[in-house]
């Protein structure tokens, strides 16, 4: 009886408007930890640039800004597909959500190929991680980010497989949301990394 009264008092709109953290709380703590580590890298890079402005300016000129731009568009688009996949999953359309996640991963592959091309182009010019402070930080930060992209792609494949086999639904979606949130974090980090290292 009390359940019936309680459900009568809570409208569908109230449920939609109730503040809810998407995914598992543990994933959000993990995301916060990751963001903190990258914040240290970003601020460290800015301090090093301030102390070696000519070296960093010359270093940035040797990077392929267009490759960075293509990668930014690839990650934003991939994140968009994941956001759409989550909306589709809310409609209990697991297979469609899985296809969208595969599409997101295919877009992320563009990032991987362009990044590797960029590294090999620099290696061919005789530039490596030990060339100077700028390239040490460039390789460290971008390779660390690349590792996160690879981990994110594995997580996306995992949730795509589960979505395809019908293991998620509108009411059982926490794992899907956690994977999606991790992927958006990878995108968020690149949004800061790209202008910091390639543009400004």
């Amino acid at each position, binding site marked *: 009886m009390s359940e019936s009264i309680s459900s009568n008092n809570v409208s569908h709109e109230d449920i939609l408007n109730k503040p809810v953290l*998407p995914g598992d709380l543990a994933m959000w703590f993990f995301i916060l930890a990751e*963001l903190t580590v990258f914040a240290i890298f*970003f*601020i460290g890079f*800015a301090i090093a640039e301030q102390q070696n402005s000519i070296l960093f300016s010359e270093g940035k000129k040797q990077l392929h800004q267009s490759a960075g731009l293509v990668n930014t568009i690839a990650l*934003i688009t991939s*994140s968009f597909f994941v956001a759409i996949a989550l909306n589709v999953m809310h409609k209990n359309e697991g297979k469609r959500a899985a296809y969208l996640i595969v599409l997101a991963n295919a877009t992320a592959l563009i990032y991987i190929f362009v990044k590797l091309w960029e590294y090999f182009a620099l290696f061919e010019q005789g530039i490596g991680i030990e060339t100077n402070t700028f390239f040490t930080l460039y390789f460290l930060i971008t390779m660390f980010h690349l590792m996160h992209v690879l981990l994110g792609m594995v997580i996306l494949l995992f949730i795509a497989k589960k979505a395809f086999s019908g293991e998620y639904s509108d009411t059982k979606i926490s794992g899907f949301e956690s994977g999606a949130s991790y992927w958006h974090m990878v995108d968020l980090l690149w949004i*800061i990394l*790209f202008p910091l290292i390639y543009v400004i």
Partner: protein
Amino acid sequence: MSYFINKNTKLAFVSWLVLIVLTLISVYLTLFIDSRTLYVAVALIIVSIKGQQIIDIFMELKHAPKLWRMLLLSYVIVVPLVIGLIYLV
């Protein structure tokens, strides 16, 4: 519910468009702005706006508990602000 889902999908598309346009603006900003100080400031403001779009729309934190939304939003404000201060002060 279907209205809610369609609205979210449309919002995600608009957000994607905003992110792409802002990315292109930040790359070609040097064509319009000569002053490095202004250029760095505008580029970092763009980072904050793009971050807000990802957090609120893609991560769907707009309707999340305030603490978590504020934690994430403060990241895309504080980190660019600190970088800007390092570059410009």
